[in-house]
């Protein structure tokens, strides 16, 4: 399309663990936004739960003085992603345009190599077609594919919202501004612990957080170049 060709955005996310309360609002919001079915207790017990974002809980300290510590874990949208080269059908591909990892559902044949190679365990597999009873079908988001059995899925950084934000900005004839695009988890976060934005813009909120002294990346030593930046100082929630 012969329209405005804007600079490529490098989407990133910053998660401030010092203000995360582990309330799971992001998990719920993600499930509603992305048509993630509820698999139930039994299936989760088998390790077949479907979550694109989950809250990992760690305990700190010795017995009477133990404190919880929460860490939301989602697809890190690695710049050098271990999941991509192992896919035999190129269903896990890197988006040159949005600089994120994609999962192309209609290509996926369900070998699960990608999930086995993901150090963050952030990919989940549809072991079954999970039934959605009739009135519940109205909650489905029409902008997101309802995945079928045998397909791998993962966090997309709410790419449908990225596209909607870009479309909105283009329709109004202006560049995408910081804060235009908010994924479901960041929108739902009551403590504003999750910040999403453009890492290539040094003035964006997420870039400023990424430069913080408290910032670190998960399993940085593996060289995956994650796009999700965690912030953690000395203190923690409740402590």
């Amino acid at each position: 399309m012969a329209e405005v060709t804007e600079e490529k955005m490098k989407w990133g996310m910053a998660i401030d663990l010092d203000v995360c309360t582990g309330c799971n609002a992001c998990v719920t919001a993600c499930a509603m936004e992305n048509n993630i079915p509820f698999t139930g207790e039994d299936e989760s017990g088998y390790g077949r739960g479907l979550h694109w974002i989950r809250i990992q809980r760690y305990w700190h300290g010795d017995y009477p003085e133990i404190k919880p510590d929460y860490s939301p874990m989602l697809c890190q949208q690695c710049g050098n992603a271990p999941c991509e080269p192992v896919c035999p059908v190129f269903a896990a591909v890197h988006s040159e345009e949005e600089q994120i990892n994609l999962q192309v559902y209609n290509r996926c044949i369900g070998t699960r190599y990608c999930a086995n190679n993901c150090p963050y365990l952030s990919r989940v597999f549809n072991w079954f077609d999970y039934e959605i009873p009739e009135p519940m079908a109205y909650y489905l988001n029409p902008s997101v594919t309802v995945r079928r059995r045998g397909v791998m899925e993962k966090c997309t950084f709410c790419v449908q919202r990225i596209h909607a934000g870009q479309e909105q900005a283009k329709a109004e004839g202006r560049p995408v501004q910081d804060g235009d695009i908010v994924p479901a988890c960041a929108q739902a976060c009551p403590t504003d612990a999750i910040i999403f934005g453009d890492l290539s813009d040094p003035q964006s909120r997420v870039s400023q957080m990424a430069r913080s002294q408290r910032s670190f990346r998960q399993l940085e030593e593996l060289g995956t170049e994650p796009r999700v930046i965690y912030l953690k100082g000395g203190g923690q929630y409740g402590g």
Partner: protein
Amino acid sequence: MDKVIALTKRPAFRIGVGLVLLVLLAGAGGGLYLTQTPPPQPIQFPHNLHVGIGAQCQYCHPGVAWGPTAGLPSISKCWGCHQQVQKKSPELEKLAAYVSRNEAVPWVPVAIQPDFVHFNHRPHVAAGVACESCHGDISKMTVAEPQPRQNMGWCLDCHKTMAPENFTRLSDCSICHY
């Protein structure tokens, strides 16, 4: 082993296999045929007549200008013109009946994409793609007819002809599949 060969040489077996193959082939052919025929509509809407008297596509399908879907006109849109037009046709009587019941016309969408494909009209219309280049020559149709062979290769054939600096975006999986 001898028994198996004897079985495959039996005429009844061969006829049976042939019949099964025929049924499968007919099913596949019929299925393909059904996807290429216009679905039954509640009103045999004459597109050719409306386009012929100069109605613009966007007058009834304005959604293309701002969003992903073109939209189907509501009864108030139809009735805005047709309450002033003499009702000579039985199809218009059907419309009048819907309006008197204050009921939406249950139009059946024709140009549909699979669930894993997300198409957006706005950028295409903004780039000046004519409606006819994808939807066929509407001025020769009564009810809208599905266009054959609109697959991903067909999309990319057109995207390939765009400016090379835009092709990275226009060939990106995430642009349609998410």
